[in-house]
């Protein structure tokens, strides 16, 4: 699996930072981080548009919390071997970061963030090996890409659209890496839907 080689050949931290800086990824991450502390957002509190934005954010938060739980199931299944296990934990960490920034943004807008459910129902009976877990995770990540794509045009506040698009990009990378790990074409088409 070629992605395993890539996972073991991470560039040195300095080189990676330089790459990320050049690619604009650091800027995107900063934009999201700033969102939760954006005073302009707080000033826009109230109104039907903001209520709708909060509802969309809360649905996204619910899905992110579910993704965190799903990766936990995968990590604890005993079916993932290193370095795939490390990859799953890394992706779970991203979802935790998404959930954190979404919750903070919802509060900033005067809303109440949803909490993680006490129990989630996943098709654990169908997960028999590492490939099954990867396939399940890839399915969730693809769904997340579509969900964010469907949310981006709906926000009344364009800063929120930008943040959602940033998360969408991260989910798409997860999906591609998981597909690659399964031996499938990592990027199956020029567009996502």
């Amino acid at each position, binding site marked *: 699996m070629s992605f395993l080689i890539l996972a073991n050949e991470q560039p040195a931290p300095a080189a990676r930072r330089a790459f990320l800086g050049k690619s604009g990824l650091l800027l995107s991450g900063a934009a999201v981080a700033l969102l939760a502390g954006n005073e302009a957002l707080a000033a826009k509190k109230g109104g039907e548009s903001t209520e*709708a934005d909060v*509802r*969309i*954010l*809360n*649905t*996204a938060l*619910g*899905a992110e919390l*579910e*993704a965190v739980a799903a990766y936990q199931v995968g990590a604890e299944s005993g079916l993932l071997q290193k370095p795939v296990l490390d990859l799953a934990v890394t992706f779970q960490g991203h979802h935790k970061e998404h959930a954190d920034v979404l919750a903070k943004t919802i509060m900033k807008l005067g809303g109440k963030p949803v909490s993680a459910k006490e129990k*989630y*129902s*996943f*098709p654990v009976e169908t997960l028999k090996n590492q490939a099954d877990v990867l396939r399940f995770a890839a*399915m*969730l990540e*693809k*769904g*997340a890409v*579509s*969900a964010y794509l*469907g*949310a981006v*045009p*709906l926000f009344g506040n364009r800063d929120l659209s930008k943040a959602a698009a940033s998360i969408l990009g991260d989910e798409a990378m997860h999906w591609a890496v998981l597909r690659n790990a399964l031996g499938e074409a990592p990027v199956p088409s020029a567009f996502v*839907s």
Partner: protein
Amino acid sequence: MRALLVLASAVLLTPCALAASPAQIKAGEAVYARCLACHSLQHDRTGPRHCGLFGRRAGSVPGFDYSDAMKHSKIVWDEKSLDRFLTAPMKVVPGTSMGYAGIEDRQERADLIAYLRDAGTKQPCAK
């Protein structure tokens, strides 16, 4: 002759009543992949389960935490109501938790609905 024409017209005007082709169901399954971050057939997730969808009153899956808007929408899910809702969920049910722009393409909606109809008759939905 006239009766035959009326019958033929009725059939042509109700394409959803016809059985979907395997190709359409497969196409619908591909569209359904877009829903899988929040939905599944069998289990309630961020969104409610889809088994038992047809003929179900919106907002009525026991134990699922719906928005007030969905609970009070008075929608009963069938081909027609699904087609309308899936076009623009937040416009059709303002206040819904389903923060999704919708599926603009009529054929994609028809394929998805055909898949959901078919899936409801098979495992894991069928008892």
